[in-house]
């Protein structure tokens, strides 16, 4: 597949770094209150970022709840919005509920958003808007019934939607191997007649190329498809989770060999697109950008009783 242009490769790096540092900063500030309710996305940022860089402002997008912070990469939504979401202020919009930018809320009953977003894909098709919908959820949520019904309808009507299974190896504490009888989760797509691919979701370039392939296909009038992106949840399910279900050494092994941030950084250095000096400079720039957004949010007048808009979800499993 075609190598993305250099400016895209560098933008992806900057966004990956922003996601990793920004989410950590939010955790330092609000602890377990980090959106949504203490679930963090460390290690899984590549998938939403690679997808969002293939979307337009009006395309619809549902990230895995765990990577909600990465919504700043969705065209139309910005860093200030996701920082505001974590600090309980909404100067412009709620990143997870901005229908004009294609986010339609989420759900603590995981899987349910699949049927909601397939409805958006249907509306886009009926109104001939040309907008693409990309619906991402985890390996756990993908087992729930609404996912099946959403795929059934998408297949029957050939709706403009790409489904993505973000396989982070655990549905809460249950290993994907206990919940599936297949290794390659993209095989689920075959039963619906979807073109389907498996990709290393911790490899930024591969994930970007895969997302582009599927999104371009749908945008050009192709029907629904499925990507299974393999990744790993480097953190706990929620803050305070003792994680007794993980085999000893597993997290360390993934962190050492497949953590997408150092991995992608190394790749760009090897491709001579980044020097160590630029890596350091980007760290400073991104940190400054995050602090500026925090300051902007904190400077907002505090309205009594102000909270998220009524129609948001993702407030608990």
């Amino acid at each position, binding site marked *: 597949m075609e190598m993305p242009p250099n400016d895209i490769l560098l933008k992806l790096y900057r966004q990956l770094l922003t996601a990793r540092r920004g989410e950590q900063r939010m955790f330092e500030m609000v602890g377990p209150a980090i959106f949504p309710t203490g679930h963090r996305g460390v290690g899984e940022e590549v998938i939403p970022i690679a997808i969002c860089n293939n979307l337009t402002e009006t395309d*619809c997008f549902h990230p895995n709840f765990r990577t909600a912070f990465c919504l700043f990469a969705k065209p139309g939504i910005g860093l200030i919005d996701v920082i505001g979401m974590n600090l309980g202020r909404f100067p412009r919009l709620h990143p997870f509920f901005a*229908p004009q930018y294609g986010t*339609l*809320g989420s*759900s603590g*009953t995981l899987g*349910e*958003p*699949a*049927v*909601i*977003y*397939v*409805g*958006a*894909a*249907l*509306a*886009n098709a*009926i*109104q001939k*808007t040309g907008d693409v919908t990309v619906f991402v959820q985890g390996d756990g949520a993908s087992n729930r*019934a*609404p996912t099946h*019904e*959403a795929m*059934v*309808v998408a297949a*029957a*009507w050939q709706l403009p939607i790409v489904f993505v299974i973000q396989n982070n190896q655990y549905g809460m504490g249950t290993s994907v191997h206990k919940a599936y009888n297949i290794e390659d989760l993209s095989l689920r797509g075959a039963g619906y007649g979807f073109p389907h691919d498996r990709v290393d979701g911790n490899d930024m370039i591969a994930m970007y190329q895969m997302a582009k392939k599927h999104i371009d296909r749908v945008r050009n009038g192709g029907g629904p498809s499925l990507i299974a992106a393999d990744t790993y949840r480097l953190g706990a399910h929620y803050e305070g989770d003792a994680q007794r279900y993980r085999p000893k050494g597993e997290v360390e092994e993934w962190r050492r060999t497949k953590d997408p941030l150092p991995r992608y950084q190394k790749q760009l250095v090897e491709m001579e697109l980044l020097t160590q000096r630029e890596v350091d400079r980007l760290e400073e720039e991104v940190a400054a950008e995050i602090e500026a957004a925090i300051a902007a949010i904190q400077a907002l007048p505090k309205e009594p009783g102000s909270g998220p808009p*009524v*129609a*948001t*979800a993702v407030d608990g499993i």
Partner: protein
Amino acid sequence: MAVLTYIQALNQAFLEEMRRDERVVMWGEDLISMNGVYGHTAGIYEEFGGDRIKDTPICEQAITGMAIGAALRGLRPIGVFMNSGFSLAAFDGLFLKIGCVYRGLPIVMQATIAGPREDMDHGISPEALYMHSPGWKVVMPSTPYDVKGLMKTAIRDNAPVMFLDHSAAMFSGYSDGSLYTPYQDGSIMFGGNKQEVPDEEYLIPFGQADIKREGSDLTLVTFSFMVHHGLAAANTLAKEGISIEVVDLRTIVPLDVETMVRSADKTGRVLIVHEAMKRGGVAGEIAFRLQEDAPDTVASLKIPIQRLAAMNLPLAGRPDWNLTPSADSIAAKVKEMVGA
């Protein structure tokens, strides 16, 4: 003035509103291939084509969830459940998402309710469940005139509406007409029975009960098919000199407390009748709303508010009207209350 069955009147409401607003779309099982089984979706595909009406696979969760997504992206969807028991397969979407989380979306979900039929999956009356979910308006019509005006209002409403039609109205009668024969006496508009419906456009606002029969001895509060049992009981009782007022709520959310209170002030007695099971049924809510909103009226009643509803039994496999209120049981209860 056209003389229409319930199904024909409902069908007209769909056609008129879909002509009026191209954002109105509709989907459900067999809406095109079998005219929605009951016939109420006939002619829509022919007039508007496949973008406006869709036959879904069997997928109640998708029928529901898609309404949310499509409404958020600019459409005004009508989701159709063949039977209200099937709607329970989508309860997360209906109760939690549309009713609690998203709320103000222009969605109509239509489902056919019924009393004792072949099984609970086809024949439950689930209105209490939707009344309990904060965002829903709940509509339960009883006549061709009402269903048309109420459905047109529902489609124009910007909040979600659960539109529950009774199977006795939706079927134009079983082939031998046996189930509904006692109530097809001319004053009762159900099944194949017809009623005059104006040719010119009309809407019926929500939260306005209709007094289907005036009376002075007792206020019978009810809705949907039980209106017809109540009217049949009123006919019988009139011959014995007992005059009852039949209040058809038409919508249970919003609830027209004012009309009930005015009637109760006049008659001094209130009986609430519904077809769903008594425990946790909407009669309890209606009675308490009367007590909260009109304590003086309730305190001056000649006899405490009573209710008549189905037994607390799963009605499956019991095609037997004796388990739910009937004209006979309503008449007996009224006589007990008026001391006749």
